[in-house]
């Protein structure tokens, strides 16, 4: 029973990693941009929610409703005025710019909020649990996993059922020809990053309620997200969820054997998947 419990906790943790990764996957899928500041943007959003919680006395769930449109705007402006200028056939400039952004964000957050770790006040929900078939499942992890599923279903609907989604796919295929069809790739890219920042805000909510955070934890979140995206097969959203779950399960199983093995086990699972399936479990060409 204890192993079943461990695996289920791992699956639910995978939901959080999938939330970290979905935005990264979206942006990579559309513009082949690896945003090295993705983890720091999650932490930035967590501080934004924290600020709203402390200034306005709101619950984090309400604060996220205000934070989401702000992050949408941040994503739009970041893409439109910074990242679009460096996108091109050479992949190095966007990597360097987002790496620089990562450093700037970490230091700005350190300056503004100090290195002290913080936590979003989740209230009763942090400790609430439900009994399912003899297992005690935390409400917060369940909510996190459900949110990840909703986000992925929502993004898939957006991608495959809407006019904007068609434009996303067309621009991803061939930005020059998309321009000939009346699509402005720069705006499409800005919209995609803005939507990715909505997902980032949601990820930040659960990150901040689940555990402590400080300005320096962004890069590690980026690595979990990155591993989930790569395990899933670059650009496949359901694959990203599976990737998140694999890392989550590996981490909880590793921790159950020896608490020191938690992080290492996640990375090992990533390496094993890469050895067996170098293109990830659901490469985009097979979508």
């Amino acid at each position, binding site marked *: 029973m204890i192993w079943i419990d461990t695996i289920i906790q791992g699956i639910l943790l995978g939901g959080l990693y999938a939330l970290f990764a979905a935005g990264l996957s979206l942006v990579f899928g559309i513009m082949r941009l690896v945003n090295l500041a993705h983890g720091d943007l999650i932490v930035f959003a967590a501080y934004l929610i924290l600020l709203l919680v402390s200034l306005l006395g709101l619950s984090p769930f309400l604060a996220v409703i205000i934070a989401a449109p702000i992050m949408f705007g941040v994503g739009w402006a970041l893409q439109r005025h910074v990242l679009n200028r460096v996108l091109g056939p050479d992949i190095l400039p966007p990597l360097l710019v987002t790496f620089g952004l990562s450093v700037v964000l970490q230091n700005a957050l350190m300056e503004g909020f100090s290195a002290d770790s913080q936590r979003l006040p989740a209230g009763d929900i942090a400790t609430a649990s439900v009994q399912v078939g003899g297992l005690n499942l935390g409400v917060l992890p369940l909510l996190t996993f459900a949110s990840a599923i909703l986000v992925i279903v929502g993004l898939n609907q957006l991608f495959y059922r809407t*006019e904007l989604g*068609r*434009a996303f*796919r*067309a621009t*991803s*295929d*061939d930005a*020059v*020809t*998309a*321009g*000939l*069809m*009346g*699509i*402005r790739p720069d705006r499409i890219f800005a919209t995609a990053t803005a939507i990715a920042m909505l997902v980032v805000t949601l990820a930040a909510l659960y990150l901040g309620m689940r555990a402590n955070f400080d300005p320096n934890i962004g890069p590690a979140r980026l690595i979990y997200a990155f591993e989930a995206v790569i395990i899933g097969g670059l650009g496949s959203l359901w694959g990203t969820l599976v990737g998140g779950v694999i890392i989550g399960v590996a981490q909880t199983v590793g921790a159950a054997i020896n608490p020191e093995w938690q992080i290492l086990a996640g990375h090992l699972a990533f390496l094993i998947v890469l050895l067996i399936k170098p293109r990830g479990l659901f490469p985009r060409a097979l979508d």
Partner: protein
Amino acid sequence: MSLLETHALTARYGDFQALFGLDIHLEQGETVAIIGANGAGKSTLMRSISGVLENGADQVCFQGEPIGNLPASEIMARGVAMVPEGRRLFPSLSVEENLLIGTYGRKVQGHWSLQTIFDLFPILKERRNHPGTALSGGQQQMVAIGRALMSNPRVLLCDEISLGLAPVVIKDIYAAVPRIQEAGASLIVVEQDIGQALKVSDRVYCMMEGRVTLEGTADTLSREAIHDAYFGGAAA
């Protein structure tokens, strides 16, 4: 005032100059063919007009307005659509989605809709849910033409639409041209097949090495003059 005109249009790829001061014009209701050998600059001309390559504002005018420095999306929105060389369908999109992308972000009014495109090329209706790139070359070309028509353009630029297709397929594709003309579009057709170009067009420009070497109506140009303009010679 011509519907579309270029004034001393030049184009460069880095140090290489591809077009040298081109002056061409297209009148309302007209079909103009651009002929010339490989490397003559025909596709560069199409890319310049459609906004893939940026020019000086006044070097390309549409309905009297300078459009030379506008992005491709804006030129398309104003009514100049292109069927690009090599078709360039979107592999992630089905046939129907490829067609619908031609109307992205705006309500277009006019003759062309999904229904009228399917009337023009009935095979596309049968294949509407197939990935665009899973079709035969000729069918892909039909999608590329339909996709451009969906925006109900005033000017349709067709870049080498017969390239790589079997003669019988080319005949089918060109059979659609009169219906496109009747629906109100004026056409610029880039074509290596001189016979085909002369058949569909009112006027012909022949290009060589980035310059127009001959201009005239299909019925007044002699074979010799075209030959000389195409390959270089005394008449040019």
